[in-house]
Structure formats: structure tokens, C-alpha cells
């Protein structure tokens, strides 16, 4: 197999993986309105726990890590997802219950930074700054896969996992649970008035999203065989946000488009370009600047994303809506030349 196919399947893997990550962030932000700026932290916890549960006992490996159970493929991934959920419970109990909007965003970004700091500095946990490596490749020994045939195999496997998780997610968004989550996103006060326990639903959404984050992270560590702190700098959260905003918030198909445009074409494809002589890393810096600029241009000219959220009409609704997309409501017409006055919501009775 030529080197080009190796690259192509690497891109395919990241497309599917970021589709999973985007679905997880989308249910938190797109469906429920939780600004999870610590998202990449959940991805990392999933990756580390998947890695540490599939690696054999740490003694004699030259690495330091906890767990080391040597578990096979689907089990370690599930544990990775559940570990991310555990972090979500912790974060939700301290921050989500008390804080709203920007305040919550600040605390979450702090959580992400501190998580980074702890894992980077506390070596016995996940091998510190060196990170985990030599993580076993799933099915490689059973199917006798070589390094070359493993990449297309795992890309396909990730595709299957992504398809499965997409099916589950579309069931969730169509269900009464999904409707309630969108109601909370649009106005949590109204949802509370209708007898919905806002915090419980937000926690549910956090848990589902974190599970997706954990599984997505687990797939990353199994694909590359290694994972260290440079892979999840807090700014990576921005990339996942870019995926869902470019693709279309609240639309699962849009997320796949976003993953293709942002993650595959903008982030990973330029990584294969040769370095400019004398300027190592310059392409990567310029690439990141392009992603930032693209997102701003996109937000300004097409805030609903490439594939906008469909307006879901109740069959019993008598009202006719002229607006085609929900996001028309997100744009307000300035009534004067001053700044609009965004309101930071106070704690609601249920929160």
C-alpha cells in the first residue's frame, strides 16, 4: 500500500473521530446550550483511561500509569467513555448547578487548564509530559494486521462506531428528551415553569456528551498508539467548536460536513505539506490562524452553519412560522447605536 493511501485513511479516521466528538459537543452546546469550554479535557480523560486500561501492568513497561488491566477493544473504549462521564458529574455538581453562561465558561476553561496541569505534572497518573505510548492496536494480533493494513482497518472500525453513535444520537435528539433539552437551550426559565428539572436534564446532556468525548478520545489513542499533553492543549476545544459552528449547530448531518471541512481539510491536510525551509512549524501557525479567521467569517456571514438546524414543527401547532431556520432568532436588529445588553441569567429556581 502506497504512502498516499496511508495518509488518506488517516484523514478518514480523523473525519469519523471528529464527527463523534462534534456530536458530543453538539448535544451539550447545540441542543442544551451548555458552553463546555473544557470539552477537550473530557476527550483527554477518555483517551488516557482507554490507553491505561488496555496497556498491561505498568511494571516493566518503562512508563508509569494507573490501572494497566490489559483489556480488549470494546471494553477499554467503554471505560474511557465512562471515565469522561465521571469527570462530567464532578464538574456538573460544582459548576453547572451554580453558574450560568459566561461564568460557567470561565470555570470550565479553568477546569481544562488545571486538568492539563495535573496530568502534565503528576507523572504516576498517566506518565506526565511523556504521555502513554505503545498502546496495543486493537485486533492487530488476532487479524495479523501490519502497520500498513492497521490504518485502513481502524479507520473503517471508527466509521462503524461513528455510524452506531450517530444512530443513537439521532434517536436521542428526536425523543422527548431531545425536545426538553432544546427547550432548556431556548429558555431554561420556561422549561422550569413547565415542570422540567432543568439541572437533571443538563446533567443528562453533559453525561451523554462526555461519553461521546471519551469514546472519541479513546479512538484517538488506539489509532496512534500514543497520547501526550501536546495533543490536547486547551485551545483544541476551539477546533471542536469550529467543527460544529461551521457545519451547523443542532444538525447531525451538518456535524459531518463540519468535521470534513475543518478537521480533515483545514487541520490535518496541511500537516502533510512540506515545511517552509528555515521556518519550522510556520505552516501549522498559519493554518491555525486561517481556522480562526474562517470561523469569524463564517459566524458573521452564515451563523447557522453550512447545514442549518431544521425547524421542528409540532403536528398540533397552529402557528405558521415564516423563518426557515431557528438561528434567525439569534440575530437581533440593533435598536439604537449602543451595544446590545446581553443579560447574564441569575440562578433559576430549579438550577
Amino acid at each position, binding site marked *: 500500500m502506497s504512502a498516499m493511501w496511508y495518509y488518506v485513511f488517516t484523514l478518514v479516521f480523523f473525519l469519523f473521530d471528529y464527527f463523534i466528538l462534534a456530536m458530543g459537543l453538539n448535544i451539550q452546546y447545540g441542543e442544551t446550550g451548555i*458552553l463546555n469550554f473544557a470539552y477537550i479535557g473530557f476527550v483527554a480523560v477518555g483517551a488516557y483511561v482507554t490507553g491505561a486500561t488496555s496497556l498491561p501492568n505498568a511494571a516493566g513497561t518503562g512508563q508509569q500509569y494507573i490501572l494497566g488491566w490489559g483489556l480488549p477493544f470494546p471494553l477499554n473504549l467503554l471505560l474511557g467513555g465512562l471515565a469522561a462521564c465521571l469527570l462530567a458529574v464532578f464538574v456538573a455538581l460544582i459548576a453547572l448547578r451554580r453558574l450560568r*453562561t459566561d461564568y460557567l465558561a470561565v470555570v470550565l*476553561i*479553568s477546569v481544562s487548564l488545571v486538568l492539563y496541569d*495535573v496530568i502534565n505534572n503528576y507523572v504516576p497518573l498517566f506518565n506526565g509530559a511523556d504521555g502513554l505510548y505503545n498502546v496495543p492496536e486493537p485486533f492487530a494480533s488476532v487479524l495479523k494486521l501490519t502497520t500498513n493494513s492497521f490504518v485502513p482497518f481502524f479507520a473503517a472500525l471508527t466509521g462503524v462506531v461513528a455510524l452506531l453513535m450517530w444512530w443513537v444520537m439521532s434517536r436521542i435528539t428526536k425523543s422527548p428528551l431531545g425536545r426538553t433539552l432544546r427547550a432548556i437551550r431556548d429558555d431554561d426559565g420556561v422549561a422550569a415553569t413547565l415542570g422540567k428539572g432543568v439541572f437533571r436534564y443538563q446533567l443528562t446532556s453533559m453525561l451523554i456528551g462526555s461519553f461521546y468525548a471519551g469514546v472519541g478520545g479513546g479512538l484517538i489513542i488506539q489509532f496512534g498508539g500514543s497520547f501526550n499533553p501536546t495533543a490536547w492543549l486547551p485551545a483544541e476545544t476551539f477546533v471542536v467548536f469550529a467543527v460544529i459552528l461551521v457545519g451547523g449547530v443542532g444538525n447531525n448531518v451538518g456535524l459531518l460536513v463540519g468535521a470534513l471541512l475543518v478537521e480533515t481539510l483545514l487541520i490535518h491536510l496541511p500537516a502533510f505539506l512540506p515545511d517552509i525551509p528555515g521556518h519550522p512549524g510556520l505552516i501549522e501557525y498559519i493554518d491555525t*490562524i486561517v481556522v480562526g479567521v474562517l470561523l469569524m467569517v463564517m459566524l458573521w456571514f452564515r451563523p447557522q452553519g453550512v447545514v442549518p438546524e431544521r425547524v421542528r414543527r409540532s403536528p398540533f401547532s397552529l402557528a405558521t412560522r415564516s423563518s426557515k431556520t431557528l438561528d434567525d432568532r439569534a440575530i437581533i436588529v*440593533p435598536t439604537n447605536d449602543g*451595544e446590545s445588553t*446581553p443579560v*447574564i441569567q441569575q440562578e433559576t429556581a430549579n438550577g
Partner: protein
Amino acid sequence: MTLFWLSVGFGFVTASVLAISAVGLSLQFGITNYINFAYGDFMALGAYFTYILNAEYLHLNIWVAVLGGSLMMGILAVLLNQFLLSPFARRFSKTFYVMIVTFGLSLIILNTIYSFWGPNVRTYVMPLEHVVHIGPFLLTRDQIIVMFVAVALMIGIHLMLKTSRLGKSMRAMSDNTTLAMTSGIDTRRITTITWFLSGTMAGIAGSVLGITEGNLTPAAGELFLFVIFAAVIVGGVGSIYGAMAGALLIGLATEISAAFINPAWKLDVAFVILIFALLFRPSGLFARPGKG
């Protein structure tokens, strides 16, 4: 006990840097009502502007360079608000959009710094340090200047807020923008001035951080941003005096703890304080109605 007093001295230095940056961030948050996630990169960029004036061209004295560099950052902050942030804030009612824009701006500034100066550690050109004994403290001359700068800035901000027309307008806008506007306050002008002050203070804080740490790296501001957030939240979001108190508390706590535990955990001490503040007093020490 000597070690304790030494770390108290360093605590005051850290608190000074923290106070300048936290007040700069709080001023802007109070007026525009959204968090500027690019603030850490404003600090870094200001520090590199100072570096240009001090080490690359002109070769100015470090403190003259700090003044010039931070004024450049202040002007850049005004331009960024005028052409990027303010249009987004006016167009979208949800603060999320403008917050994501500041997040993107943070990436853009950070990678611009990387493109120009690379990831290598830089140092300012400064005269040799004289160590001075003041009571139980042991400080360098530059650290003492940093503390004086911080105290002078805090007094200046206090006087401006309480006595000048500008300060009163700022406080009015921070309480209720619409009411301030209907009372005849030119809110756009106040917003512009606030961004200038916020950018300048970010520039001073970033440069001063580079001086006290002895080096500057592109990501220094971003790492420091969390400590600023901790100080601002502990003090009470949007409250200038809260930011000052929070800065003092977090600055002293992190440095004193470093004398007893591994200094690598400084950041986590700030985080633990933040968690306790959130659990027991989520709106901060100096909570203001409508800002929490």
C-alpha cells in the same frame, strides 16, 4: 520563618502583576458584559511589543519600553473592538458568539506571535539586578518598581472611578448600559476608552510578568489567564475592588504555598481556592447585583 517571609515578598510581587491584569480584565467585562478569552494573548502581545522596543529596535530602557509597548497594545485593543468585537456584540444577542470570537482571536494572536518570534524563550535587556533587603523581604529593584507601578495604577483607577466624569460614566454603564445611554452618556466612547485602558493594562501586566519571571514565551499570557480568572471570580466578577482583593489573595496564596509544597502545583492551589469560593460564595467576595 525566613523562607516564609521571602515567599510573602514574592507573593506581593505576583499579586501586583495579578492585580494589574485582573483589573484590566474586570474593567472591560463590567462595561461590555462578555469575557475576553484573548486577554492572556493581549498580555503576551504587549510583552512582545515591549520586547521590540527594548531588545530588537530602538533599544530603549526597559521601563520606557514597557510604557510604549503597552500603549501600542491599548491602541490595538481599541482597533480590535472597533472592527471585530463590537460589530459581533451588536449583531448577536447571545454573548456566546462574541465569546467564541475572542476565543478565535486568542488563537490568531498566539499563532501570530509564534510566526514572528518562534517558540523560543526571549529575555529583556535589563541592567544587572541589585538585591535589596527591606525588613524581612529580599527583593530585586525591578520587583520593587513592579509593586510601585501596581499600587500607583490601583490608586489611579480608584480615583478615576470615584471622582472623574469618565469614571462615573463607566460605573453607570457597568450597572445598566441602557439606563446610562438614556441618561445621555456616550456609551460608544466609554466602550472605546475602556478597551484602551484594558489593552494598556494587559500590555503592562504582560511586560511586567516577563520582567518578574525573567523571560517571555508566546504562551505565558495564556497560562497566566487562568490565575487571573481565579482572582476575578474569587473577588466577584465585574467588581474592580473585588479583582484587587482576589489578586492579593491568590497571589499570596500561590507564592506562600510554593514555599511548602512543590512549586509545580502553584496553579492548583489557585484552583482549590477557586473551587472553595464557588462552593461557599459563588458570587465572589465583592458580589455585585446582576453580574453573577
